[in-house]
């Protein structure tokens, strides 16, 4: 063991050059919807908006998988819970289903629904995590996988005898999000510039993504975050150091669920329509893939993974389909299944060759990677 100070503490004081870069990056982000509008056309701002939603989801899952090292395979279920929370409290559906109770319809303000969606999703997280988290990590994976499936069964079937979710048709006519009296659903004019609806949502999502990044960063460096990483690396040692592993794991799981729920509420307001089929296993795997591909436990990596994978379907649609058309004269592999195939392969290949992700966090690389002589090779290693 050398006494060299590890490089995991970067210089805290940013020099003026990196500050400038940061400001330039910020401005570029703020102009992004106008840039994509000009360069790629109208539809792309919407795609970028969805990418931001996915980034928020991936950052939430990163708390569970990246920080605490728990595998959640049904993360999209919490997204679904949040989305249905928003949908039920901001659409005419409840008024139609229960005319006696809600004859005027339920239309709660955004700032009430958002925390409510987060809390309810977090509650589901606790319900699911409490029985499983005191056991081996594998059980959590399979229980979340099952939960992700049954939540869809419930959403699909709870239209009879009491019509709560409207079944497979889903809930439509959801009120758009309106912030401080400004509806995000129509073009608004500020300072003489017209901001179409997708642009307004972009800024809202950008603000929320920034908030999620900020919270993740603070969490990572907090006592709680360090405890999570200690648990991830060695649960026995962590609990010997006095960490209440079960409660902290539960906290990580519930917190991830809350982020998922909040993103779900944003999704419902943005899309104006929710149905069970938006919350399939595919989506859970996609979000997991973002975290794994980018770099578990590293915020920048997760954001990169989110951007890459959220844009992938568009790339596939625009490149693979015409390519196949010109090569074979028809589409042999549809881009959707190709996408899933790529996700699955990415999960395997990343774990085999670059387990810490494209942009690994330093701590994570030390733990998962092989740049240091691996202690695991020792004969004292007790295999589980």
């Amino acid at each position: 063991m050398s006494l060299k100070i590890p490089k995991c503490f970067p210089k805290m004081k940013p020099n003026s050059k990196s500050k400038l870069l940061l400001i330039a990056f910020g401005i570029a982000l703020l102009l992004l919807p106008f840039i994509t509008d000009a360069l790629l056309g109208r539809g792309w701002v919407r795609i970028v908006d969805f990418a931001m939603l996915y980034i928020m989801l991936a950052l939430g899952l990163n708390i569970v998988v990246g920080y605490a090292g728990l595998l959640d395979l049904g993360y999209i279920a919490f997204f679904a819970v949040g989305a249905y929370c928003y949908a039920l409290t901001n659409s005419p559906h409840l008024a139609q289903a229960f005319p006696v109770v809600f004859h005027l319809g339920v239309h709660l303000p955004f700032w009430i629904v958002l925390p409510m969606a987060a809390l309810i999703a977090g509650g589901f997280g606790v319900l699911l995590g409490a029985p499983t988290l005191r056991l081996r990590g594998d059980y959590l994976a399979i229980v979340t996988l099952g939960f992700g499936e049954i939540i869809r069964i419930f959403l699909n079937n709870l239209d009879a005898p009491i019509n709560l979710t409207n079944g497979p048709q889903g809930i439509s006519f959801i009120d758009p999000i309106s912030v401080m009296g400004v509806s995000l659903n129509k073009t608004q004019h500020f300072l003489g510039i017209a901001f179409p609806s997708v642009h307004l949502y972009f800024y809202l999502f950008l603000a929320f993504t920034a908030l999620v990044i900020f919270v993740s960063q603070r969490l990572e460096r907090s006592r709680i975050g360090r405890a999570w990483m200690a648990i991830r690396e060695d649960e026995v040692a962590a609990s010997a150091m006095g960490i209440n592993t079960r409660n902290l794991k539960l906290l990580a799981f519930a917190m991830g669920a809350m982020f998922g729920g909040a993103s779900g509420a944003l999704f419902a307001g943005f899309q104006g329509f929710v149905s069970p089929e938006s919350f399939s296993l595919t989506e859970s795997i996609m979000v997991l893939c973002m975290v794994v591909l980018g770099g578990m436990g590293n915020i920048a990596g997760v954001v990169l993974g989110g951007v890459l994978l959220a844009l992938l379907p568009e790339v596939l649609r625009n490149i693979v389909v015409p390519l196949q058309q010109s090569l074979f004269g028809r589409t042999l592999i549809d881009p959707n299944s190709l996408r899933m195939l790529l996700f699955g392969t990415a999960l395997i290949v990343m774990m085999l060759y670059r387990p810490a992700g494209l942009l690994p966090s330093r701590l994570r690389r030390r733990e998962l990677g092989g740049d240091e002589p691996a202690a695991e090779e020792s004969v004292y290693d007790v295999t589980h």
Partner: protein
Amino acid sequence: MDILLQQIINGLVQGSVYALVALGYTMVYGILGLINFAHGEVVMIGAMLALSSLTALLGWGVPLLLALPASVVLAMLGCMVLGYGIERIAYRPLRHAPRLAPLITAIGVSIVLQNLAMMIWGREYHAFPQLIANTPHNIGGAIINNIQIIIFILALAIMAGLMTIVHRTRLGRAMRAVAEDQHAAQLMGVDINRVISITFMLGSGLAAIAGIMVSANYGLAYYYMGFILGLKAFTAAVLGGIGNLRGAMLGGLLLGLIESLGAGYIGDLTGGFFGSNYQDVFAFFVLIAVLVFRPSGLLGERLAERA
């Protein structure tokens, strides 16, 4: 009363299939301490391979008596190769990695298999050819058909065979030794890589048979069938005590019973609020209940019993 009997028969038949799949989970878990998420997909691939080879053989005019065993053997061989490959590619390099890594590759393999199957066999439901004259027999008012009888008896026979392999043969002794302590087994001259590969192949062979049974029973095969089946079989394995062979069998049969009785009576019990479309939910609640009240399963994870 005859409805009760009918549900019990259906449950036992379905449960014996769960038990076969659960054995695959439990064997791998016993030896590696790893949940092989891809196991459900192996079941699906088995059914699909059998379907394709059966249609091809029958199409060439091969008599059914020859085509059926041939396609079963083909499906089993295919699945064994698949199981071997999965272990080699996705699990063996990560045997000493942190636990999260093999779990992630496992789900990756499962996704890849499912989508490959979708590309090869398409999204649609395939009708599985009816192989045997499906004469219904009346037992005390309940109906059981030939296929169900064959499934049940065959499953029991296979389980008995597996128990014999694990407890009476040299290979079985090696498997139990590896399950108990890999390093010690290695020091005693057991080739653990070989034993692990064989375990995967055995489990995959069972999965192929289970897949054919499910398809024959429902007359359907589709690319998505392995997912829910895998989840339920895993529940069965946990219910009986994962890592425990007898537990997997017991858990499978019990889960089948719980499911069919639950689906049969949930409507009456909840006053029509929940219907039989919630059938797939029972397994999940059983899983949660077992994890809360008896995480080691009904028969426990007795080390000496692990295979």
